[in-house]
């Protein structure tokens, strides 16, 4: 099922992952792997289980799904770990929706809650580097989280994650609320980060934009992986071309 290169051990590997909401199966993924420095795009229609999937990998949710299955980070099983422990190990999620602490300034939002450990393939960004990456955040550093636009909140969420030394960065719909220019900039940033060795799992509804940067594309339908392959190949698949690229054109 997985198209990850067999020779390189995946950074993130999920096996038999299931998530159910009140008995309804939202996600059932036999195998999903992300290799070092790889960007994997997860696409699918609304309600296909994209968010549920990345949330399950992070052991996190604003709802109360019951999750089972194996999740390994660098070969270590993390599925029994609470969210904060996975975060500290470098499995970082930038969720969809609320990303900023509304009553804290941007500066305070971008202050690490713990001292991240630098390790294999983990690069810890400083606040100044985040400001260099997103100059807009620097301009807004004294503003409260509640005063930020949707796009600024996305930058804040990505910035906070980078400051925690990600090993795997999971982004849930980062293009929501961003102007097209900024979408391109964020995806460009993702490319640069991946080239530096960061593994990225990118949930995107904007399939066209996703295809620009991802190495591999996974198509979810009703919680199951129906396509998984190199971006060029999967992008040409009629199921993608008709249902997603056609609809988005």
């Amino acid at each position: 099922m997985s198209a990850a290169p067999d020779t390189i051990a995946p950074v993130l590997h999920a096996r038999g992952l299931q998530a159910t909401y009140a008995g309804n199966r939202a996600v059932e993924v036999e195998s999903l792997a992300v290799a070092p420095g790889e960007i994997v795009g997860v696409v699918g229609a609304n309600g296909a289980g994209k968010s549920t999937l990345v949330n399950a990998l992070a052991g996190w949710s604003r709802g109360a799904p019951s999750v089972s299955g194996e999740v390994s980070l660098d070969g270590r099983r993390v599925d029994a770990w609470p969210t904060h422990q996975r975060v500290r190990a470098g499995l970082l999620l930038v969720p969809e929706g609320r990303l900023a602490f509304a009553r804290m300034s941007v500066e305070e939002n971008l202050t690490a809650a713990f001292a991240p450990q630098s390790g294999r393939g983990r690069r810890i960004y400083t606040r100044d580097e985040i400001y260099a990456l997103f100059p807009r955040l620097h301009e807004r550093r004294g503003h409260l989280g509640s005063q930020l636009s949707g796009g600024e909140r996305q930058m804040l969420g990505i910035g906070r994650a980078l400051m925690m030394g990600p090993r795997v960065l999971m982004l849930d719909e980062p293009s929501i609320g961003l102007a097209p220019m900024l979408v391109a900039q964020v995806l460009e940033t993702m490319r640069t980060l991946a080239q530096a060795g960061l593994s990225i799992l990118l949930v995107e509804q904007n399939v066209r934009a996703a295809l620009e940067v991802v190495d591999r594309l996974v198509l979810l339908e009703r919680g199951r992986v129906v396509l998984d392959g190199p971006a060029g190949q999967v992008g040409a698949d009629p199921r993608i071309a008709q249902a997603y690229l056609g609809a988005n054109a």
Partner: protein
Amino acid sequence: MVNLIQQLINGIVLGHAYALVAIGWTLLLGVARLVNFGHGQMYMLGAFISWWAVSDLGLPYWAAVPLAMAAGALFGLAMQRIMLRATFEQNLVSIMIMTLGFGYVLQGVAALVFGSTGQILDTPLSQRDIEIGDLWLTWQDAAIVVAAIVVFAALKWVLDGTRIGRLVRMVAEDPKLAQLAGIDVRRVYYGVFAFEGAAVAFAAGMIAPRTPILTSMGFEEVIMTFVVVVFGGIGSIAGSYVAGVGLGIFAALFGALVSPAYTSAAAFLVLIAVLVLRPGGLSAGAAKGVH
């Protein structure tokens, strides 16, 4: 005139006592969105442990209060352990019933252990008076005022100016997002409940010497604390201080000028009026979260 100033002094002391009793609950509400209707009985427990440590163990008052605080913190941790699931689910109805239950169990056990007679907790300060002309208060009263100010200022400083405080504010605002920032939210909840237990026991050790202590006194305490916490604007530290002191002065003056029998009823009338006019309490506009 002298009587009025004396009542004002009484009110200030009473008000700082209200505020000091309420501080643990204020933090609890601000951070974990939890109510604790066992708060009054935890106050009672703190008073009795202080009294027991002095009268039976023969400890000095200065050692008895920290002992009561340690017991309060442990009790708070045990409560949170039992309610952890409900806390994460923000199941307020369960939490209300459970804390009410804890309170009554505590009251029953205390009645069995300590009996139903009122006890007096004497301290080195409560028997010494400060007299200025015709005006009068005890050194214990003065210590309550100082302690309340110090505890409020310290809590405000910790929340606004330290790393721990920042983590607590993050959990207060969005516990789910705090998890993704690498915070062990469960530990913060435990810490807040331990603080609640220790703080109310400290308040009891300071304030209980003013009146005879009874195992049944928790109910009155929980009601007045609830008024202070709601008045101050849910979870607001500064708001609770202002509300506590204001309520104390109001109660003292109302009691002296109108009738002490109707003080609670009058306090609730004012509370209802304030909540109608300013739904967020005194710190409306910034009522959510801890400040």
